[in-house]
């Protein structure tokens, strides 16, 4: 059988040691954006590590760490404009923080409180989507709305490698192709879907090439290289905003953590693989480059770490001091207007007011 030849481009500027392997784009001459990326990634990692600590000490629920894959969402969080819409997945903390979620919203959400997704500053961005890949349909719908309204904005839809196997994702790609929707699909390929390795998700050499099925341009980028990410995402967003349709970007990253705090990756993941992956992680890489180009020093680093810790500490306090929701809230948001039958159930609940405290921790 003839297998058609496919060449998916791969984009990378900095190697694992932070050394340029190609001439850097002009915008890097001014370090501001790269410094911003660095600060955001560092902050996100502090937020992330604190979340794990909160979970370990029984102060928060199951949490999926984004450690190691901060670069992707840091870059798109910055590049998205006010009226673009982000449809994230659950490891996009760095992006969410730049889009109007407060740090304490992250903790509230993973602490089992709906109000983490409620803050008005989140505008029309979508909240975390737990059923894998279903958000791809929402993203395509938002892009359709923009098309109907002749808005020149874009929707960015993010997901993991596992998500690319699910019909929702593929149906949405197809629609983006046929309706030329203003979208950017970013696959954060962190090599694992819980315990299932990338090679058991898909037989194709790249996940980016799923775009080919839909007639979409596609590219692979080093997902630990903020410069490559910036180039690819910026171009794709502009493309989308000016009516040229959607792009599929596969960012190659690595999940340095367990799948969630309820998972133990040592059961299925070779420790050598993890060791190798640590050599490629995005924060150290950018830091090295910034150092070598005299944009960074120990003093700045220390100041940044202190600022980040203070911010996170404040958010933790706010989170822990947030009073529980009144019971009525459990009923009041199912419909704009509560139906009579539900109203009586609400009264029943208010009068019951007790209940059993459940003990077990989640297994995911």
């Amino acid at each position, binding site marked *: 059988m003839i297998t058609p030849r496919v060449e998916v481009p791969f984009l990378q500027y900095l190697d694992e040691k932070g050394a340029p392997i190609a001439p850097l784009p002009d915008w890097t001459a001014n370090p501001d954006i790269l410094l911003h990326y660095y600060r955001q990634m560092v902050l996100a990692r502090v937020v992330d590590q604190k979340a794990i600590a909160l979970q370990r000490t029984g102060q928060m629920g199951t949490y999926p760490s984004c450690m190691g894959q901060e670069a992707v969402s840091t870059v798109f969080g910055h590049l998205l404009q006010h009226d673009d819409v982000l449809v994230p997945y659950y490891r996009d903390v760095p992006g969410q923080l730049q889009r109007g979620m407060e740090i304490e919203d992250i903790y509230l959400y993973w602490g089992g409180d709906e109000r983490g997704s409620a803050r008005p500053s989140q505008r*029309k961005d979508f909240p975390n989507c737990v059923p894998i890949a279903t958000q791809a349909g929402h993203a395509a719908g938002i892009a359709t709305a923009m098309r109907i309204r002749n808005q020149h904005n874009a929707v960015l839809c993010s997901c993991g490698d596992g998500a690319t196997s699910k019909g929702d994702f593929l149906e949405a790609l197809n629609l983006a192709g046929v309706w030329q929707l203003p979208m950017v699909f970013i696959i954060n390929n962190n090599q694992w879907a819980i315990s299932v390795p990338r090679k058991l998700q898909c037989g194709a050499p790249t996940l980016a090439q799923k775009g080919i099925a839909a007639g979409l341009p596609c590219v692979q980028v080093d997902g630990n290289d903020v410069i490559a990410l910036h180039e690819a995402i910026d171009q794709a967003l502009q493309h989308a905003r000016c009516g040229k349709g959607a792009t599929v970007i596969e960012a190659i990253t690595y999940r340095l953590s367990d799948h969630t705090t309820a998972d133990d990756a040592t059961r299925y993941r070779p420790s050598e693989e993890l060791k190798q992956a640590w050599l490629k992680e995005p924060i150290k890489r950018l830091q090295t480059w910034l150092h070598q180009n005299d944009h960074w020093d120990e003093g700045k680093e220390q100041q940044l770490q202190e600022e980040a810790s203070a911010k996170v500490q404040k958010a933790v306090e706010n989170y822990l001091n947030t009073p529980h929701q009144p019971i009525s809230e459990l009923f009041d948001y199912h419909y704009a207007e509560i139906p009579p039958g539900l109203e009586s159930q609400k009264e029943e609940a208010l009068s019951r007011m007790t209940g059993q405290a459940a003990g077990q921790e989640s297994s995911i």
Partner: protein
Amino acid sequence: MSEQRITLVEAVNQALHYSMTHDDNVVVLGEDVGTNGGVFRATVDLKEKFGLKRVMDTPLAETLIAGISIGMASQGLKPVAEIQFMGFIFAAYEQMISHAARMRNRTRGRLTCPMVMRAPFGGGIHAPEHHSESTEALLAHIPGLKVVMPSSPRRAYGLLLAAINDPDPVIFLEPKRIYRAVKQPVPDDGKELPIGTCFTLKQGDDITLVTWGACVKETLEAWQQLKQEGINAEVIDVATIKPLDMDTILASVSRTGRCVIIHEAARSFGVGAEIAAEVSSQAFLSLEAPVRRLTGYDITMPYYRMEHHYLLSSKDIVQAAKETLEYQ
């Protein structure tokens, strides 16, 4: 303002025209809803009048249709999605259950889902397999959804307008067996009918007949036959399955003391179970006979050559009513 007599499916079309004319946020999508005007003609002339941007032929993918409707609704549009037959709605369940029903609650009102999902349902039109489903119970169980099932041209018009204007997701199920069964004058005045309210079609003190969808037709025929025998039945068209208006039903049964629930769907775990359970417990002291459920069997709708053995006739209803009346 046209007052010509129209069918149920024409009333659906008229409501869509009205909504799209008066509200730019209303858009229509689905398979074959554009040039073809829908396989049942429910969306006829919409594309011509409102253009390709607002009347969208989608690729063949029900999961996607639901998913993009949710996305559009979150941005303030009011999508009216057509699922070609209720038998093909299941691929949309994950989206409807996990997202449409929950977006408001999940974001504490920051994002909402004012969408409508229309689908023709029920058997009796000699259609192939998977074209005769009545699985309204599966949707009614889900908190956050509303489920509406009109049974006349006028109610189709008024309830569809209400569904489109509703700030929450509404599943709008159209009884295709009676799509063209009767014609009524339906003023194109934009007047909504209330969602969440039963319609009492006939008043009577002897027994309460509770039904919805296409079965309303046979139930009214049965009412007629009973009347000729001197029995005055009250006929209630539930119309909104969720949220359920138990008040109207209970008020009736507390007067009549007897109740038959008639539906086409399979009996077990059907909508009739909920109504029977509520009537039995809340009208416990006024009931003079067990609540009777006259429903489809717990089988897959037979292929069409035998489907009439599955469907209920007015004779079956008359008999069930009489048995319930005779109960001592």
